[in-house]
C-alpha cells in the first residue's frame, strides 16, 4: 500500500505558516516582534518534520519523484527561515545614520505642522498648553514610519 509522506507535507505547510505569521500576526506585539520567538519555535517543529520526511523519502524503496519533491520542500523550509532572519536582523537595521538627531540635554527644535483635523500645531504650544487643566509635565515625540 502506498502511503503519503505526511511529515514532508506538514513540514512544508508549517514552514509557510512560520514565515508568514511574522508579518501578519506576530509583528503586532513587541515581545514577538523584537525577537521572533514564536516563529522560531514554529520553524523548529517544521524543520524536524521536514527532516523526518526527508529521511523517509530517501529510503531505498521510495521513488525518485518523492526524493526530489521532499528535497525541494525541505530546501523551501530552510529558505523561509533564512528569509525571516534576514528581514528582521539585516533589513531591519538598514537605517541611515542620525548623528545630528537631538541628544539628551539638548533643546528639541521647534516646528509647526498640520494635525489630523487640519489645524496648525506648534511644539511650543504643546509644551505650554495645559492638558486637562493641569500644566504639561512632558511631551513625547514619536516619529514613525507611517500607517502602512
Amino acid at each position, binding site marked *: 500500500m502506498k502511503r503519503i509522506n505526511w511529515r514532508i507535507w506538514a513540514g512544508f505547510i508549517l514552514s509557510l505558516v512560520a514565515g508568514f505569521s511574522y508579518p501578519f500576526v506576530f*509583528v503586532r506585539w*513587541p515581545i514577538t*516582534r*523584537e525577537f521572533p520567538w514564536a516563529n522560531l519555535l514554529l520553524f523548529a517543529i517544521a524543520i524536524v518534520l521536514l527532516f523526518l520526511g526527508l529521511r523517509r523519502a530517501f529510503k531505498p524503496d521510495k521513488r525518485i519523484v518523492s526524493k526530489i519533491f521532499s528535497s525541494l520542500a525541505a530546501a523551501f523550509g530552510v529558505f523561509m527561515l533564512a528569509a525571516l532572519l534576514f528581514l*528582521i*536582523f539585516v*533589513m*531591519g*537595521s*538598514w*537605517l*541611515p545614520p*542620525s*548623528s*545630528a*538627531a*537631538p*541628544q*539628551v*540635554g*539638548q*533643546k*528639541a*527644535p*521647534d*516646528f509647526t*505642522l*498640520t*494635525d*489630523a*483635523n*487640519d489645524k496648525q*500645531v506648534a*511644539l*511650543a504650544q*504643546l*509644551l*505650554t498648553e495645559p492638558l486637562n487643566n493641569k*500644566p*504639561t*509635565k*512632558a*511631551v*513625547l*515625540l*514619536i*516619529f*514613525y*514610519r*507611517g*500607517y*502602512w
Partner: protein
Amino acid sequence: MGISVDSPEQTRKHMVQEAGYPFTFLSDPTLETIGRYDLVHVKELASGKDISRPAEFLLDPSGTVRWRMVTENFFVIARPEQVLEAAKALP
C-alpha cells in the same frame, strides 16, 4: 504626539478612526521637521518613498530632551513601559 509623512486625511482615517489613538498626530509630508531632527530615511525599501525612521523623544516643559530612543533596527521601537519609566524620572 506622533509625527510621520502621512497626510492629515491618512492619519485621520488610519490612526484616529481605525486605531483609535487619542493623542495628537502631525503631518510632515515635506519632511521639513523630520529632516531638522536628522531622521529622514531616504528611499525606504518597502515604501520606495522618503519617510521618517522610528525615533522617540521625551521632552520636559522647557523643550529639552530628557530621554530618547533612536533605534538601530526598525522592528525595535520604544515600549510604553520604557517611556513611562523615563517620564517618572522627570521632576
